[in-house]
């Protein structure tokens, strides 16, 4: 019996972990950021002579390639409505003053990731493992920081995402809000207003203007709506204005950061989304000589090209290769008018120098990256040989080449074939390096995703099977095999997918087939069991994820009240407890936090804010203090009445109160004492000592088999753990956590002696989620409680390697505390009126854990499915993927809580 429980849970958790690992391997491709900077003197990236004084970059968000292409078909009706709206581009192309390229972006094609790509020249993935999640500021080496550190100036106007990424890089910035997708004019009007005056000023070297109108028109109406040509014509007149005010020393680059699909969205990797347009123009140009061979360039190629053009070092983690057509030295042609043959030679030597810089920079980056992170070995060796060959070729060139005197006389320069050879070798190296990195970082692995989902689905079936309680004696070896298989398949998951699937799923199928006959559908099905499935389905809709706290609250209230309609008789006690439970649940609503997407309609309550950050009137403080007092008294009474209470928890609570009082006193008097660090540390010491004591009593001081004893110890442990969460949450959110505890107590009272309630475990799961939201959390990356990371730690001692462990622990604990709490207190709920250990009571307990785990597993499956389904959705990196990450954290803490209380149960009984 004992072993069976452990077997069941370890098998399930291993299987789930296996599925999730597979899924994440395909879905979340990670890349490590390297925070080194290129510098002019580091020997690798010293620069060429700058070619332009001024460069204007006009980014038209979601400017697809075919918006720029002129369609000269005679049949007017076959021309799509969005084409031929930029006549100025066509005119300049005809005059040989401009070039047009297909500008291929890398997925994910969301603006934030693309801006990172355009400025760093690398391939950002969803998780760039940097040192800091909290701010969006770009820490990697990028073209803007290189420009500013070379003493050049940047002026910026348009989309305010740039300011989040580069808060300190601009000498003048005119940001406009980008969030409202339905607002198609604000940003463009702002850009139009500021562009001309700024262009006339003499003090800038790079001018960035980012228009959002086309993108927002796409999101709102789609590309084939009559508004689109109007918007594009506005852009046309903007380009005309810029062009008419340019001098020969200026270069204009018009580009889209990504394209759009037929419905106007973007985010994925379909051809329509990745093929943006790129148009370059300079009045001094004549591309007659420069017979451009390529029609398509990569988005990352922009960074090295800009560096070469402005004469600055190439950013450290760039992966792009220089666009040779753009670095073509026309000024030579303008100044000296050499012959056509001659200019090609000079150009080639110029190209080879640029490519050499580029090659060395990329090689340095790859070396640094592969030193600390996994890099496929075979590919690395291949690249290494390519690099050696290119360098060798270049050095041979150098010997025959005379450097500066070549500008006028071509005879002393290296022969054509050698140059050609080097250029080819370098280009091969650059392309292959880019391809290898791309395959590593920027592609969803659909096989891996579907394997993960398959394993997860099968384990859900297995879990459902366990829930219906069908035990066959000969099945025990199957369970052993299952555990071993799942464990092995986690170990071998990098070898072959067939092997993993076989190892983990064969025992599952054997078990399912073996128990098939025993399943009774009526036992299986209760209406309330649909709750996790409904929630899982709701995760496929972004608005339900955004409004999830309210959905959870609504469902919880429904589960509290609806069963009352279907009861024949109800006792008064039931009514009172349900009203109380409903009230505490409703009160939790005051602690819900709003996320970015909700802002115009949702208003966060000032109850959240900690006393030391309140700047309100007296009555807010009064309300705060009174809610705190009321919740504390309620908490105390509840525990006095319904749960065995331990005095030493009061002492711990006193420490927390002292800390808060000290905190607000310091805030009011604007001073800083050492107590702010040492009181929490005192708390931690007491906490650890008490914790060890509790565990000790569990293991050695037991009266065997007495359920009430076990329940008492568990509730002591739960209260102890919640004090840590309360300390971390701060005085503002502490009542929210206390409400979650009160909910728990009321819940356990409500279902005392009620054996056949279908709504019990779904409601319990919903309450655990509600506790998460009532703790002031939300499932977006912006709402991660970073302020909890340094409670009781001073910033100065974050030097050592282990310094990150505690903050990470604190943040994750205060986030997913509710799951741990609810998983640990399953015994309190399910054993509330059981006095002695027997087979039935154990069944009840295991059943509770199984139900709770099932609730979260189904929802985790929903999140995974939604993320996989919407991997091309506009909001995937903003809504679905963060939701999945939070759900994973929940799953980890849930299984941790279950395993811990299961272990303690086994040890005690």
């Amino acid at each position, binding site marked *: 019996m004992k072993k069976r429980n452990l077997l069941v849970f370890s098998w399930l958790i291993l299987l789930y972990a296996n599925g999730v690992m597979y899924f994440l391997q395909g879905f979340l491709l990670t890349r490590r950021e390297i925070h080194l900077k290129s510098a002019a003197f580091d020997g690798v990236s010293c620069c060429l002579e700058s070619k332009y004084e001024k460069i204007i970059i006009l980014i038209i968000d979601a400017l697809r390639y075919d918006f720029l292409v002129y369609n000269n078909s005679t049949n007017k009706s076959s021309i799509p409505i969005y084409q031929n709206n930029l006549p100025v581009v066509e005119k300049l192309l005809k005059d040989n003053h401009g070039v047009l390229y297909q500008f291929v972006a890398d997925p994910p094609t969301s603006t934030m990731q693309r801006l990172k790509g355009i400025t760093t020249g690398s391939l950002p993935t969803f998780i760039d493992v940097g040192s800091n999640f909290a701010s969006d500021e770009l820490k990697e080496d990028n073209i803007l920081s290189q420009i500013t550190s070379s003493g050049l100036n940047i002026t910026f106007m348009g989309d305010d995402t740039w300011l989040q990424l580069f808060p300190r890089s601009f000498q003048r910035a005119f940001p406009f809000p980008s969030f409202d997708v339905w607002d198609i004019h604000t940003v463009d009007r702002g850009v139009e207003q500021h562009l001309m005056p700024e262009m006339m000023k003499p003090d800038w070297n790079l001018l960035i203007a980012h228009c959002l109108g086309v993108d927002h028109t796409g999101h709102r109406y789609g590309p084939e709506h009559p508004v689109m040509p109007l918007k594009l014509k506005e852009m046309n007149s903007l380009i005309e204005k810029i062009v008419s005010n340019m001098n020969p020393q200026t270069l204009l680059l018009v580009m889209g950061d990504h394209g759009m699909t037929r419905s106007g969205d973007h985010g994925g990797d379909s051809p329509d989304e990745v093929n943006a347009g790129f148009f370059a123009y300079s009045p001094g140009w004549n591309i007659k000589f420069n017979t451009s061979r390529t029609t398509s360039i990569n988005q990352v190629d922009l960074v090295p090209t800009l560096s070469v053009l402005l004469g600055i070092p190439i950013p450290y983690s760039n992966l792009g290769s220089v666009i040779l057509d753009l670095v073509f030295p026309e000024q030579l042609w303008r100044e000296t008018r050499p012959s056509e043959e001659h200019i090609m030679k000079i150009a080639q030597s110029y190209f080879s120098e640029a490519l050499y810089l580029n090659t060395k920079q990329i090689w340095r980056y790859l070396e640094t990256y592969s030193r600390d992170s996994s890099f496929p070995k075979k590919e690395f060796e291949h690249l290494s040989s390519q690099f050696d060959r290119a360098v060798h070729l270049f050095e041979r060139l150098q010997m025959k080449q005379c450097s500066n005197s070549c500008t006028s006389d071509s005879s002393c320069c290296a022969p054509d074939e050698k140059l050609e050879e080097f250029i080819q070798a370098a280009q091969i190296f650059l392309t292959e390096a880019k391809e290898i990195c791309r395959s590593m970082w920027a592609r969803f692995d659909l096989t891996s995703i579907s394997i993960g989902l398959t394993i997860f689905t099968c384990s859900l079936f297995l879990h459902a099977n366990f829930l219906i309680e069908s035990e066959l004696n000969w099945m025990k070896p199957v369970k052993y095999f299952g555990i071993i298989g799942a464990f092995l398949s986690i170990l071998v998951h990098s070898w072959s997918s067939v092997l993993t699937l076989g190892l983990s799923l064969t025992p599952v199928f054997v078990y399912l087939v073996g128990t098939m006959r025993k399943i009774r559908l009526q036992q299986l099905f209760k209406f309330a069991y649909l709750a996790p499935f409904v929630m899982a389905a709701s995760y496929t809709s972004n608005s339900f994820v955004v409004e999830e706290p309210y*959905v959870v*609250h609504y469902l919880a209230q429904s589960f509290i009240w609806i069963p009352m309609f279907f009861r024949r008789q109800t006792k008064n006690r039931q009514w009172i407890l349900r009203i109380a439970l409903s009230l505490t649940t409703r009160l939790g609503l005051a602690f819900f936090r709003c996320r970015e997407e909700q802002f115009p309609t949702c208003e966060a309550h000032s109850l959240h804010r900690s006393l030391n950050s309140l700047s309100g009137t007296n009555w807010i403080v009064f309300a705060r203090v009174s809610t705190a007092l009321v919740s504390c008294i309620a908490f105390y009474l509840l525990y006095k009445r319904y749960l065995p209470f331990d005095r030493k928890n009061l002492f711990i609570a006193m420490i927390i109160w002292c800390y808060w009082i000290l905190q607000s006193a310091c805030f009011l008097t604007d001073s800083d004492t050492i107590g702010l660090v040492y009181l929490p540390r005192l708390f931690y010491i007491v906490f650890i000592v008490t914790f060890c004591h509790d565990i000790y009593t569990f293991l050695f001081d037991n009266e065997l088999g007495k359920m009430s004893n076990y329940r008492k110890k568990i509730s002591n442990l739960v209260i102890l753990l919640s004090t840590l969460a309360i300390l971390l949450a701060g005085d503002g959110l502490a009542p929210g956590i206390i409400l979650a505890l009160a909910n728990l107590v009321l819940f356990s009272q409500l279902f005392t002696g009620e054996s056949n309630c279908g709504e019990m475990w779904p409601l319990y799961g919903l309450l655990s989620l509600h506790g998460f939201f009532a703790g002031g959390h939300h499932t977006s990356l912006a709402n991660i409680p970073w302020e909890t990371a340094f409670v009781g730690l001073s910033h100065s001692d974050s030097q050592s390697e282990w310094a990150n462990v505690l903050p990470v622990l604190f943040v994750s604990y205060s986030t997913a505390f509710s799951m741990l709490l609810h998983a640990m207190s399953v015994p309190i709920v399910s054993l509330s009126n059981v006095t002695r250990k027997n087979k039935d009571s154990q069944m009840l307990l295991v059943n509770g854990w199984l139900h709770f785990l099932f609730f979260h597993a189904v929802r985790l499956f929903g999140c995974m499915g939604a993320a996989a389904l919407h991997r091309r959705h506009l909001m995937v990196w903003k809504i679905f993927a963060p939701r999945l990450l939070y759900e994973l954290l929940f799953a980890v803490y849930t299984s941790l809580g279950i395993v811990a209380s299961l272990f303690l149960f086994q040890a005690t009984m």
Partner: protein
Amino acid sequence: MQSDWPSSKKRLSEPFISNESIACIWNAFLCSSIMFWRRMRGAKDDEGNIFQFSFCFSILLVNIIFCYVLSNFRHKEKLQVALFLKYGFVTSTLVYIVSILFGAPLLKDWDQTISFSMLLSALILPSVAACGKLGNFFNFSCLNLMGTNELFTCFGAWLGAFVIPLDWDCSWQVWPEPVAVGAVLGCGLSSLLKLMRPAMTITWAGYKMYWPTNFFVHERHV
């Protein structure tokens, strides 16, 4: 399954049309005219939300008058006006509290919440009064006897709330309009179903089954 349909002998002594049926017809008429009115108003101006205080209050009044007339002219049991007023007040308050509990804003839009609670109690009133449950309505246990009409009305309102979080940015997605519309639709639908009940009676294996009444609970017939 035992049927509680009156035997043929008893049926003969009944009036040509029962109070319940009249209430159902009235409900169906009222709900369809509310929906029609909403449609007309919505076409005229964008504001659209017709469930304002005065509107809901007048519907409550109309229903109270209707039920008073119905019960006092066709029913053996004479009901006092005060009872109706008490019913209106208590039920509205109850619904108000329940909607707050279910997540309606506490202070903001309180007038909207009040109008919604009056609408809901008005919609439930005819069937409650016609079933003769009004007399002992304030007995707590009576909630167990929720009939089809009441269940459908509440269920419609419950379902209506699910469109509120969607990001379509429509003017009708704001509390309490979708919930009120759901309640009206549920009420109308259940009235129609109840009217069609004789036609939908299924005889199966010797048992008579009425749909949808005994899908949930047995309704008490007076």
